[in-house]
């Protein structure tokens, strides 16, 4: 899947402490911004609540595909062993459920696991070719909050002031996010 560039810029504040960033994210949300994002080198716990994000829906994908893997595996083994070419093996019943459990289990895990990763790729638009990077230190030791210019409350000066109040050590105009 190709990366579809979201053609909008905005303003980013950069912090060097994740606890300050948490407070900043909370403040930005309370100031009425909706289109903003935190960028961090590692998952900062509490950030989802600070930003007001809902829990991820990926578990549902895992559940549905895991269930699909389970039923398809069972159905397929029934088709092969009891329907398409029934063979008497050791006098066992054609549909020998206990013997079919291991493969059913493995395929449940396989479908569940691969669909989870596929869902993650879809929701994060990965792989992204050459994504715009606000600052290379954001995968190292800096933390940023980016407010998009498409936000209805977007006002350069006000945001600049807000970021400064919240202790940002650097403020950057971003051309493309």
């Amino acid at each position, binding site marked *: 899947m190709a990366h579809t560039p979201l053609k909008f810029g905005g303003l980013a504040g950069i912090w060097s402490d994740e606890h300050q960033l948490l407070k900043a994210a909370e403040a930005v949300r309370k100031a009425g911004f909706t289109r903003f994002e935190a960028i961090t080198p*590692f998952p900062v716990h509490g950030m989802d609540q600070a930003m007001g994000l809902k829990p991820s829906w990926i578990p549902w994908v895992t559940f549905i595909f895991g269930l699909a893997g389970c039923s398809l595996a069972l159905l397929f083994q029934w088709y092969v062993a009891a329907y*398409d070419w029934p063979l008497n093996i050791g006098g066992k019943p054609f549909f020998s459920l206990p013997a079919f459990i291991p493969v059913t289990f*493995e395929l449940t895990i396989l479908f569940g696991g691969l669909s989870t*990763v596929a869902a*993650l790729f879809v929701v994060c638009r990965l792989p992204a070719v050459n994504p715009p990077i606000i600052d290379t230190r954001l995968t190292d030791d800096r933390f940023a909050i980016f407010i998009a210019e498409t936000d209805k409350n977007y006002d350069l000066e006000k945001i600049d002031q807000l970021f400064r109040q919240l202790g940002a050590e650097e403020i950057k105009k971003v051309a493309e996010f």
Partner: protein
Amino acid sequence: MIPRKPLVTGDKTYADITRDICEPVESPISKGWLALFGASGVWFLFYLGIIGVIVFFGTGMMGITHPIGWGTMIVTFVFWIGIGHAGTLISAILFLFRQKWRTGIARSAEAMTIFAVMTAGLFPALHTGRPWLDLWLFPYPNQRGPLWVNFRSPLLWDVFAVSTYFTISLVFWYLGMVPDLATLRDRAKNKVSKLAYGALSLGWRGSNRHWSHYETAYLILAGLSTPLVLSVHSIVSFDFAISLLPGWHTTIFPPYFVAGAIFSGFAMVVTLMILVRIAYPKIRDYVTVDHLEVMNKIIMTTGLMVGYAYGSEFFIAWYSGNIYEKYAFVNRAFGPYWWSYWIMVSCNVLIPQLFWFKSVRRGIVPMFIISIFVNIGMWFERFVITVTSLHRDFLPASWGMFYFTWVDIGLIFGSFGMFFTFFMIFIRFLPMVAIAEVKPVMNVGKPGKGGHH
């Protein structure tokens, strides 16, 4: 309350962690690495030669013959699969139990899993005798009926278990590495590495909406890997336990195999981590003696579990009143293969007891030696199970002995060459410690530094 020991030693900042872990990847190729890589590469080529002999001349080149149709390949297959289990235990099960010390060793242990399963996977594929027909292991529509595979056979369960295990472990390992690959991309100085790590990092940027989904996905994969890893060695044990052979046909096999797998896998992690600590002294701040001590405690515990299984097998053999079962076990300990049985017991049950002493548990030299003994012992455990059960079954007319050929020895020896070649490539080109996982726990155990959680 006993104070927690720091998980990362030294007074590190986030930038220090990034630099320390990226350094082996970013610095120019050293002579030491080149020498070791060259040596393991030659070792691997030798292994490929042995495999060539088996493919070209057939499995008869090995010592397997009537009545011992399962020899070195199955023994070494179970050995390597078992090694892999510690990696998944560290990355998935300890993750679910919120064991923060796992962060320092998880990445390299997972890499060990991947390479061990790759090494293991070759054996059954070659043991079929005609590996170019291994496609037949999978149920695909064919023009022979279609003649399907037999889903009641534990050997087929193994195909599904091992291939699922490899796929999910690979995905789990890679997913965990994506944020660190993005770090390497952002630090890359030259075009080639920028391009390579840019592609490998899949365009990860660390935005919190992504992290939120990422952490959920990671948790789910850990949750799926946990029953998966337990199922894999259970199914491997079914290869034996589902049969009717005395010495194989026991219900204790699945838990006994899983405990043994974790036991041998942790020993291999200790062996590798000690070598990595010698080669890269900076890693000692991330893989501390405390990490090694915890692993040694696990080795000791699982060693006791394995010892309990050995004892329990003997008890049941006597208590069952079944003469064949009883004979199989007496023959194991006192028959012609008595030496392999006692190597197994000494290496797996007796020697790890030295870990009761703190100085042994925390001493690099003793723990290294013990970890090697455990690996030897666990290879012999699988040898004892496979060969001693087969060589004397119900009819004395079909008794026999197993003799190693040079191809057997070459296979066992060479498989380590394959494993080490891949491991050398891993430590040179990929971050061997999970940067994004170590950073949040770097202040654990350091009072006054906000070491929360």
